[in-house]
């Protein structure tokens, strides 16, 4: 039971640090650059590239694939990824 409490404490502290990284250390400008600008341009780039190479029929597949990859990336590596 004590071990579980310690683990919960580590979890809570990690949550707090992620919050601090997101809103204090990383700054709003950093958040805009890496969580807005980068994902939008990544999707635009790969969709445009795929459309140029294979035609318009794969545009939705490429957009959804990149959106999934970006979401997974953010979840795994945290707010600065």
């Amino acid at each position: 039971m004590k071990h579980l409490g310690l683990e919960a404490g580590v979890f809570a502290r990690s949550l707090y640090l992620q919050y601090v990284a997101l809103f204090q250390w990383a700054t709003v400008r950093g958040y805009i650059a890496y969580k807005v600008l980068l994902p939008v341009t990544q999707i635009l780039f790969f969709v445009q590239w795929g459309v140029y190479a294979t035609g318009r029929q794969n545009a939705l597949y490429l957009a959804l694939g990149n959106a999934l990859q970006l979401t997974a990336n953010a979840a795994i590596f945290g707010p600065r990824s």
Partner: protein
Amino acid sequence: MNLLGPQRLVVRSLVRAAFSAFVLSVRLRVISPWSYLNWLVFPLLFAIVGLYVLSLPGAGSSHLVYGVLGGGLIGYWSVAYIDAGNGIQDERWNGTLEQIFATPTPLWVILLGKVCGGLLFGLFAFVPTAAAAFFGFHAVLPALDPWRFVISLGVLTLSFFCIAITMAPLFALWRWAFSMINGFELGVYILCGFMFPVAVLAPWAQGVAGFLAPTWAVKALYAATVAQGPHDFAAWWAVTSGLSLAYLAGAYFLYALVEREARVSGELALV
């Protein structure tokens, strides 16, 4: 009395300082794993994916050219703006910024050597990507015009050099500038036409792309590898050179600001 003597000595000492900075930056990049990620791993990944996608059945030879050169261009750009552009930031992180400002050699001379070292490594990015294209996909440049290709690559290098020199004080003065440009990295790939032609973009996006010097040099570079399409090399080289010099003019004021922050207020290391 030979009046040119002292001037010649000064010029020679400046060239020697720039060359020393170049050698040191090359040696640091040889032992840096991050550097290999930038010029070897990252462009190679893009090149392999690009070659796979662009060599699908039915794709034209002009499509494949973007796979052969695109990965190298991406690597070259990444090294130019990240490695070379962080020339002043590196010194701040290493704790050597104050020593550099205390030396009689002007800051731009040291940066000149460092940026040239960065660009040399950026050029290396074409080696693994071209090798992957040739050995992995049996892809070659279909109608290569060697002289125009070399000149276009030289003009592109000039534009990357001017951008790196301009970004160095920009990144040192405002840290968020690097985050923004780093976040917009793939936007640059789109607007400069690294992996597909700018002509496929919306007209407004083509207008924005026109203000970026590498766009025109990349257009010339690709035109030198295919027979079809427009071949206005002189105009493209002139636009690239003009825009690059305009960036340098802007950099002049940024360097003045860096000098002020470092020498007058002494706050540059704290930004």
